[in-house]
């Protein structure tokens, strides 16, 4: 029993320290214009895009038909993310780029 808790604690510590180290890397925020039209699209995107490499945050704006992605430039690029959205069947254009760090 104790061992299991210890293991869980170690696993948590390792994963936090890994994510802390990674934070120095450069983060890019890109907005993609996307032909979204329903709540289910948002659900689907929120199940897929957060798990693309290096993605830190995803916001879906159904009203403006936009998907905003924050990601680490060392691990991903606008072109690759655009491809990922297109693979889900959307027509995508890159709207603006705004480097944060």
């Amino acid at each position, binding site marked *: *029993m104790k061992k*299991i808790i210890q293991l869980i604690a170690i696993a948590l510590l390792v994963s936090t320290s890994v994510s802390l180290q990674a934070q120095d890397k450069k983060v890019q925020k890109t907005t993609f214009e996307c032909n979204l039209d*329903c*709540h*289910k699209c948002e*659900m*689907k995107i*929120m*199940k*897929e895009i*957060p*798990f693309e490499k290096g993605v830190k*945050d*995803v916001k879906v*704006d*159904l*009203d*403006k038909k936009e998907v905003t992605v924050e990601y680490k430039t060392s691990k991903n690029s606008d072109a690759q993310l655009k491809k990922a959205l297109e693979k889900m069947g959307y027509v995508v254009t890159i709207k603006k780029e705004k480097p944060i760090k």
Partner: protein
Amino acid sequence: MLKYILFAIAGIFQISLQAKSIEGWIFDGADSNAKAPLTGANVYWVGQTSGTITDQNGYFKLKKPDGAHMLVLSFVGYASDTLHISGAKAIKHTLYPGAQLSEVTITERVKATSISRIDPRLTQTISQKELNRFACCNLSESFETNASVDVSYSDAVSGVKQIRLLGLDGRYSQLMLENIPILRGAETAFGLDYIPGTWMERINVSKGASAVKNGYESMTGQINIQYKEPMGDEKMHFYAYANQDGKLETNLGYTQKVTDKWATSILAHGATHVREMDMNDDGFLDKPMTNIGSFMNRWQYMGDKVDGKFGISYLAEERNAGQVGFDPDIPHQNQSAYGIGIDVERFSAFSKVGFMFGRPQTSLGTILSFNYFDRNSFYGDRIFNTEQLNLYGNFIFQTYLFNTMHSYNTGLSVVYDKNNSLFQDSAYNNANFVPGVFLEYNYKPTDKLTFMAGMRYDNSSRYGGFFTPRVHFKYRFLEYLTIRTSAGKGYRSPYAIDENTSLLASSRNFIFDEEIEQEEAWNYGASIVTDYPLFGRDMTFSVEYFYTQFENKLVVDREQSSEAVHFYNLMGNAYASSIQAELMIELFERFDLTAAYRINDVRTNYSGELLQEPFVNKYKGLISAGYATNMNKWVFDATVQFHGLSRLPGVYDNDPEFYGISKPQSFINVIAQVTKNYRKWSFYVGVENLTNFTQDYAIVDVENPFGNNFDASMVWGPLYGRMFYGGIKYILIK
């Protein structure tokens, strides 16, 4: 004076709301007059719980919370529309008849648990999100994180769990699968185990009197389960679960579109228990060795004027329990060890078809169902076999009078129940044929006020004719405050042995003092719910009171003697009162907290003495918290349950230790779970009964199971200690 103050407050609310409100008109596409208003249409934001209904001019006004922009417009019998709202200009939109008859689906609003603002009854919706908080295996366990429904073990050997609503046993609430009454009569004992948690889309729990169109049976409320549908969001799911006690479980669901109008799905569930366990060293297995397999095939049709749902299902279960040395492969008569064996087979089929007519709010719904249940069992040397057939038909016509402010539904129903039981050497055979008619009137002059009155008359071939009146009243004021009151009657046909099979795990003699009549009870309730957003965050606070007064009840009397259980009709008083306060709040982003407290007072007259109902906790408290990291990658859930003191029946309550069982205590139970979500996969680990509190001794005269004092039904607390579990989920969205 008070009136003016209220108006003033209402005015202030109005002003503060105007800044961020959206208003508009909804028109009826079925009317030749292009601008005929549609009254009573639902308007709500996707992902929010706030919503409203259009008034007699088709007008609505709704607050626009931050981030809300998808507005759903829906109406019974009409195709729903979702609009993108940008800016503040008024909306003019027409809804057309067609699609979805059954009821307005509210799946878009993903809150774990929410209370409906529209329903005149106090209805709580438990969504997928809530069901995922505790990876549970079946219906009874899905209520572990819910404050309104209690879950407990019925005896110390069979592993069967039971539920309670408003302090009364689950059999006094009506269980329905998509509005078809299920788990009746012989199935009440362990039917909850037959509803796999992963098949469910959501559960609606309505407390107090119910709608008369669903029958006369509900007394304390209704629990309506919605399974995943062929035309739902999911293409496929696969779940696997294992726990420390050796329980393994898998579930599979798959949907297939056949044509534009037809879709089908299969759902399969299998579970087995592989580890023999006796942690408390009483010589009895802690959990039964169970194998269960069930399968369902569903079809869904969605046409322009006709909707249909059809399904068939099959279930087989075997359960072996008892003393550790008992061998289920050898006939029990040839062994000296005490054993329990339960074999169940169940087959059911249903059809639901709805027809829409040209007139708005006008439809005809037909429900047909067939259910066959066969159970063969032994408890030591006691034999109990049951064969049951249920046929059900319900025809509901719904329309309005003058205008849509006055709507009503009427129809007729037919119920046929046949139950043949063999207990020891006596046969108990009975059949009950009950045709009935009903009428329910709904008055909804504004979106604030609803008055609903229903009456039905049924004629039972066993008990004769009887009326079932029910009324509901709902009023919403100050935008965020809703009060509800209800009163109504309910009836039940009791099946004394079937419903009390946990008592077979004892040496008590079953004594029928008289012919048992139909059970009959009144239920009265009142509640107040506020959903005022606190500091801009979702918040719901409710206080409710329900009182159930029995006119007749099947009294299960274990008080008179420890060697017998007496069954007789109620003489004198029996009631259940329940008062509950519940707070649901989003404390900070992605952190939800629920806190609830309930006091039960449940009493029955046992041969001249009004006693507290045994095993009912005097109070229950619950604190449940859930936190999800950004983008839902990690989800953490924990629930703490506080169980109040309960009473043991008869002589056992005075000095339980003398009889070798633990004295009832109040106790705390904790369950917790961590989930990691990936694109399509999720992994979870969790723990049940983290505090490791158990009722150490639960069996009277455990050394002599064939003696005169043996009793395994004295269960008031958890029987198993801390238990870890883990599992995987795979879900493919369409």
